[in-house]
């Protein structure tokens, strides 16, 4: 009952906001290129998805996000494992990783576009670059946060290093890894869009810039809606997978690094 009430209230607020937006825009005579009414945005969205190019742009951006995310997360996890397990790798690489992490990753987007071109590749590189760091940091954090008693237990059982890693350290790191995966998916969306802003021939970022150029403000809003939907669906998927994998942790995964 309480849940139903909450959902009802949320929807009621949304409806009230949309209605006052719709009629407020007309009442105050705000021009549509500044703030189009919701009805026009929804129509533009429908139009773009049904007949226009919006669906294609969405598909391009979604692919960039997903490929970049998977790539960045995989490399982040792999390197994190190496750094946490091998002292030599840590000494060689970790200081640079920390230093690079303090550079705003999206600031490198123009350079990446010069190196990888206007196509798919540069967006994937940027999306994976921003996903990489939270994973790396969280994997290292997670692998290091093993309880001393659990390590003593494994040692007392004469476990090999690989067994200790596989049976204790890695499962222990899963909550932190999933916290990183949650942060990274949001950042991957940002990365792909920034990449498209800098230089692209397709994608929602490209579409936003294009709509901007021809003063198609409803078109920009339509793209925002699609991005919001993509972002929250992907985030929910990662969250749901995390809850299943890390079932022994009841509370929400704590985001420990970004």
């Amino acid at each position: 009952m309480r849940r139903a009430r909450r959902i009802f209230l949320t929807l009621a607020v949304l409806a009230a906001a949309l209605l006052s937006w719709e009629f407020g825009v007309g009442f105050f005579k705000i021009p549509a290129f500044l703030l189009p009414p919701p009805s026009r945005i929804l129509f533009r969205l429908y139009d773009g998805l049904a007949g226009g190019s919006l669906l294609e742009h969405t598909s391009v951006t979604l692919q960039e996000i997903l490929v970049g995310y998977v790539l960045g997360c995989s490399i982040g996890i792999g390197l994190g494992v190496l750094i946490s397990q091998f002292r030599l790798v840590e000494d060689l690489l970790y200081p640079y990783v920390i230093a690079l992490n303090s550079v705003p990753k999206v600031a490198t987007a123009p350079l990446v576009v010069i190196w990888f071109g206007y196509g798919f590749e540069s967006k994937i590189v940027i999306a994976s670059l921003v996903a990489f760091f939270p994973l790396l940091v969280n994997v290292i954090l997670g692998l290091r946060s093993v309880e001393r008693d659990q390590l003593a237990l494994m040692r007392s059982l004469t476990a090999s290093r690989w067994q200790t890693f596989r049976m204790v350290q890695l499962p222990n790191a899963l909550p932190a890894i999933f916290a990183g995966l949650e942060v990274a998916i949001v950042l991957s969306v940002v990365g792909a869009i920034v990449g498209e802003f800098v230089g692209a021939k397709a994608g929602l970022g490209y579409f936003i810039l294009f709509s901007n150029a021809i003063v198609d403000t409803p078109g920009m809003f339509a793209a925002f809606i699609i991005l919001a939907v993509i972002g929250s669906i992907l985030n929910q998927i990662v969250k749901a997978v995390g809850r299943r994998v890390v079932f022994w942790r009841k509370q929400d995964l704590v985001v420990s690094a970004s």
Partner: protein
Amino acid sequence: MTAPETGASGSLIQARALGRVYQAQRGEPVVALHDLNFEVADGEFVSVVGPSGCGKSTLLNILAGLLGKTSGEVFLRGTPVDGPRRDIGLVFQGPVLLPWRTVLQNALLPIEVQGLDVDKYRLRARELIKMVGLAQFEDKYPFELSGGMQQRNSIVRALVHDPAILLMDEPFGALDAMTREQMNLLLQKIWMEARKTVLFITHSIAEAVFLGDRVIVMSPRPGRIVQTVTVDLPRPRDLDVMTGPEFGDLVRSIRRHLDAQQGLD
């Protein structure tokens, strides 16, 4: 299942002039254990009691091969201890269960780690789980169990690979008094059925006397043995034993020894 394989002297655990010194980063080195000499016979239940800081956990960690000694000698089943080994079962202060494993999976961890046939040992694990009263909880996870149940799970884990020696480091210290009494009864039952050699560390004099065939009394800094008390109470002991005169005498005598040591410090 295990053929008792005793050392030359017939003892399963032997410590000779055992000592351990911690080298502090600054200042004087700390003597945690000084000149410990004792033996534990096959199938014997020996309690070690002493105040915190008497080095009893250090002693247990040395026996388990997790910590090095700085002087003297330790033998388990006649062979010197030079690292962790597979013929001991270790029970920690906390349950130290892996939260992503069920009761049965946690119980089988030593079997997996030691590369033994899991299918062969599953039946044994189930029997032990039944013995400690967790039969209905086999497929539950640690977060679904109470503290006492978790510790019972960890005792099963320590026994599953059928070790000759069970080393227990204040295993019931974190439990409430009533659960603790139940665990003491359960441990006695397990010991009488499985006939392991047990070294049981505790800071509760009553618990030490209730469970032990003998009680080794230790003093703090440097940790050394001040007294060894033989407990002649008949087995199985029930909780009523604790209110009897013999039990009271033993507890009083041990406490007096400990108090005297405290006074010297």
